[in-house]
């Protein structure tokens, strides 16, 4: 830890990474000083000379055709500089190449309350606001869809013509292995319905963007985005400018959690308005607008059917999920696959069938929130396992241990695992909570629940097909002894800057203060795809390591010659380069750099990382692969008031398989933050919508578009957390590190549900677990009825043709066995874009083919 003047004393760390000693040490994060002094400049803290202010006019109806937009009255107001409407920016965009269904401003149709319709710029924010209120929009109302069931029943009018069927955006069915035989081999079959309601990220920072036009038709855009590279691509597409004319800088994000991963209309409009006016323009969203942007957790209905032998061995599983996607695609195709993809990575499933549908509804689009599509099925799976354990008379921990996946295994759906620390995670929380002795034996109203989870360490594939690295780092060593570090990764609070600095300083033997970081700037840094899918520590870490090792070997070559010492004997530590066999013999870092620059010229290096290929080759195999997976286990202890149904978590024990903690203090923060967010979802967080009365159009409106009414836990609700970091270095990660930003959320909601069952015998098969649901279960039990509360039906939907994929243990090759039938039945390609096709496109030198033709096959 860096000494803090007047502050906390240093704690000796376990720095056993490179010679620099930074890996494994809980040092103060490199942006820590700026964050506690108020010096960090978030997007809305930027102010440029002559800056104009932008406000959006947003739809007041949930579905309608725009009859007219009248700006006359607004234009007459003081300070108004200009307007934009959909016709000014007609090119569609969207985060996934397969769903380019958004417009920066609605072209003809609005699809949810809050959809941007027009934009006005003025000399002050007040003037822009007054003008936005004065814009008159006339809508012809269209029928609205509120739920998956309504989407099934309302194929017309379509929200988007590219939907798989009617208003069903995505419909899929796939089977891995012989599920029927698996169920036939089962001694017991468990089938349950679950529902996990939608919720939102609620970052404290409201999205903001500043755009400034520059000479030569160029433009710089600063924005609170987790994905500056993808925003850069969207701006290039919609503005019709060459990518090289646009520079995107991701400001430090005041919280993201997935909510700033899409390119947004307001970012594009801000850039367009700056070009139109020839002066800087800023937009800062209100909290209500942040709710309208959303892209949060999908509400998901689930039907889960699992076969087991009486000893608890799993034989087969069928999972059906139905996602309420909201009005746009967003990441939805990926989200849909993610509700099934990671079901196989914790416990061995010999056969598995997954079917899913994502519906378009007239609500703000759902997208990726921490855990992206996986907390919902994880809730279902871990609650059902608890039921299986109780029914079979097994200890819930033992049931899980018996079915643990093996390190390096390839799962039924062709995911290649890395190390699997789940067994050690289970052991740690079981011991910590005294689970074996206390589960089932606590006094009435008190209970313990166990659950596990797993998450990606970076999506194996980029969002658009390409052959390039997914993360890059460039270093420049200057003769004054400083090192400039360039990387496209976006700091969203997770600590990516600190990981970047630690890896470089560790390998070069420098102090953190010797480094200057330039990050998330599309003009100056090599691309990193962004802060999503828990990819940054692993991918950026590898890239930083490669860049630092290359710089080090170059310096070692020059120093070796100067000192007459073999290069391989040189050590980089304590700002020196010295002979490991004769510590006095060496050069100071500055001298070493000078010697190297004198010999080789200006001193810089680059490193990059591309994930390994995954073995799956079937349509849909693009979602789920990762270089490795993290694992978590949690036990939650709850207290339930039988009179009111009110329940509280009293203590959480969580163990996380981190591989290797690069900075344990930051890892602890990610674990505790994930636990907190998981508790919020389990207890109270929900994106609730309501219909206005028929007299007022039956419009669908957000019930709680405010920080007060959207309930989230405060420090008063947060129970103590005991965290165990399980370190089992994974060769797939830099220094053995895995992810931590998302995985530890996953076990929390099911552990809460399982604990409530242990406390009062009530099964609540839905999230959030509102007190009235617990009470309903208690009342049912009092009447001698089953104490189970949750959904009683699953949307009736035809999942269509089933793609059949033989498992590795059936001798499969990663492809589907019925491709031809699939293509005949659906008219779609069965196999995802192959490496061979990508090679071919590369050889043909066709950038167009790489980024356009093949992108359409990704994960789809």
């Amino acid at each position, binding site marked *: 830890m860096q000494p803090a003047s007047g*502050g906390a004393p240093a704690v000796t760390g376990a720095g056993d990474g490179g010679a620099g000693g930074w890996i494994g040490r809980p040092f*103060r994060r490199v942006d820590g*000083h700026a964050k506690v002094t108020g010096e960090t400049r978030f997007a809305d803290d930027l102010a440029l000379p002559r800056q104009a202010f932008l406000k959006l006019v947003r739809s007041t109806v949930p579905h309608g055709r725009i009859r007219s937009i009248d700006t006359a009255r607004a234009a007459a107001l003081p300070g108004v500089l200009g307007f934009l409407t959909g016709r000014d920016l007609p090119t569609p965009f969207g985060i996934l190449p397969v769903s380019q269904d958004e417009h920066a401003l609605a072209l003809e149709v609005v699809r949810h309350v809050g959809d941007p319709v027009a934009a006005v710029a003025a000399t002050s924010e007040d003037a822009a606001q007054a003008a936005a209120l004065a814009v008159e929009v006339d809508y012809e109302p269209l029928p609205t869809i509120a739920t998956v069931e309504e989407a099934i029943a309302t194929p017309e009018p379509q929200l988007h013509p590219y939907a798989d069927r009617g208003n069903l955006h995505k419909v899929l069915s796939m089977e891995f292995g012989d599920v029927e035989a698996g169920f036939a081999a089962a001694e017991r079959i468990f089938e349950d319905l679950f529902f996990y309601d939608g919720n939102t990220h609620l970052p404290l920072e409201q999205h903001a963007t500043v755009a400034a036009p520059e000479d030569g038709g160029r433009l710089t855009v600063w924005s609170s985005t987790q994905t500056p590279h993808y925003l850069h691509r969207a701006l290039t597409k919609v503005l019709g400018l060459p990518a090289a004319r646009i520079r995107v800088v991701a400001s430090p994000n*005041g*919280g993201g959690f997935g909510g700033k991963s899409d390119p947004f209309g307001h970012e594009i409009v801000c850039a367009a308005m700056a070009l139109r006016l020839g002066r800087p323009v800023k937009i800062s969203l209100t909290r209500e607008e942040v709710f309208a942007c959303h892209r949060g957790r999908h509400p998901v209905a689930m039907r889960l059917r699992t076969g087991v032998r009486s000893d608890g061995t799993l034989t087969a599983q069928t999972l059906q999920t139905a996602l309420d996607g909201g009005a746009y695609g967003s990441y939805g195709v990926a989200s849909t696959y993610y509700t099934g993809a990671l079901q196989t990575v914790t416990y061995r499933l010999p056969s598995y069938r997954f079917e899913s549908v994502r519906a378009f509804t007239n609500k703000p689009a759902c997208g990726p929130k921490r855990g992206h599509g996986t907390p919902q099925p994880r809730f279902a799976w871990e609650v059902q396992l608890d039921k299986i354990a109780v029914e079979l008379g097994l200890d819930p921990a033992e049931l899980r241990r018996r079915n643990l996946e093996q390190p390096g295994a390839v799962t039924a759906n062709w995911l290649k695992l890395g190390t699997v620390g789940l067994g050690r995670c289970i052991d740690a929380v079981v011991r910590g909570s005294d689970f074996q002795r206390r589960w089932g034996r606590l006094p009435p109203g008190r209970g313990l629940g166990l659950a596990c989870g797993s998450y990606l360490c970076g999506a194996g594939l980029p969002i658009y097909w390409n052959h390039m690295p997914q993360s890059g780092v460039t270093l420049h060593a200057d003769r004054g002894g400083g090192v400039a570090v360039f990387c496209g990764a976006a700091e969203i609070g997770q600590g990516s800057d600190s990981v970047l600095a630690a890896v470089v300083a560790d390998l070069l033997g420098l102090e953190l203060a010797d480094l200057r970081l330039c990050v998330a700037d599309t003009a100056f840094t090599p691309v990193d795809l962004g802060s999503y899918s828990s990819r940054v520590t692993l991918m950026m870490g590898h890239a930083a390591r490669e860049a630092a090792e290359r710089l080090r070997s170059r310096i070692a070559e020059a120093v070796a010659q100067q000192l007459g010492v073999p290069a391989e004997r040189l050590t980089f530590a304590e700002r020196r380069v010295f002979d490991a066999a004769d510590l006095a013999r060496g050069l100071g870092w500055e001298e070493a750099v000078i010697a190297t620059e004198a010999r080789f010229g200006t001193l810089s290096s680059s490193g990059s990382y591309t994930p390994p290929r995954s073995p799956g080759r079937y349509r849909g195999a693009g979602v789920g692969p990762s270089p490795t997976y993290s694992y978590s286990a949690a036990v939650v202890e709850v207290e339930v008031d039988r009179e009111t149904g009110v329940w509280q978590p009293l203590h959480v024990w969580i163990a996380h398989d981190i591989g290797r903690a690069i900075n344990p203090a930051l890892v602890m923060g990610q674990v*505790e933050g994930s*636990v907190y967010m998981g508790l919020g979802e389990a207890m109270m967080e929900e994106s609730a919508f309501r219909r206005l009365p028929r007299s007022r159009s039956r419009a669908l409106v957000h019930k709680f578009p405010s920080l007060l009414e959207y309930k989230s836990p405060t*420090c008063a609700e947060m129970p103590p957390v005991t*965290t165990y970091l*399980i370190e089992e270095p994974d060769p797939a990660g830099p220094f053995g590190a895995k992810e931590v930003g998302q995985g530890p959320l996953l076990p929390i909601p099911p552990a809460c549900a399982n604990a409530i069952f242990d406390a009062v015998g009530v099964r609540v098969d839905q999230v959030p677990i509102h007190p009235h649901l617990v009470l309903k279960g208690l009342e049912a039990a009092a009447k001698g009825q089953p104490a189970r509360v949750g959904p009683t039906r699953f949307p009736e939907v035809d999942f269509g043709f089933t793609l059949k994929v033989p498992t590795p243990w059936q001798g499969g090759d990663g492809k589907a066995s019925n491709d031809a039938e699939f293509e005949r039945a659906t008219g779609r390609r069965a196999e995802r874009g192959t490496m061979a096709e990508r090679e071919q496109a590369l050889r043909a030198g066709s950038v167009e083919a790489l980024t356009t033709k093949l992108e359409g096959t990704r994960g789809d």
Partner: protein
Amino acid sequence: MRTATLRVNGEPRTVAFPAHHTLLEVLREELGLPGTKHGCELGECGTCTVLVDGRPVLSCLVLAAEVEGQAIATVEGLASGGDLHPLQACFADLGAAQCGYCTPGILMAARALLAENAAPTRDEIRAALAGNLCRCTGYWKILEAVEGAAALLRGEAWRPRPETLFGASVEPSEADE
């Protein structure tokens, strides 16, 4: 427009601003002090907390014109010269600031608490900070950082517990044997 002399972090500043503008807006937009953040502008999140005559106040709910002549303290005035206030140092070292967006408001609320109560219990800290939302940390590092700063301000030796920085030991303790 209204002209007023505001005393911010001990420095008198005469500024002109629309009469309906809040203290938050005037701090950020007229006084060049964007360290104070906004999360809702409706008094719901606590992010914009500043001190007015030592009391924590939501600057989004106070008109700048109302606080003329009163002592206004923001996060920019918390450090002394180059030395971080113990609250700041403990927040930075424990990871009580992740994205850092709620941090200025929480630091100011905590500062008001410690000025009144040099040795607050954990429940007293929770009560003082229950109006400040944080989405990153899960709050525990914040509570521990405030306790650490309180100890340091009392002149006591304080260092973070190893399990705060490294996690709990997975080895069975002697008590388990």
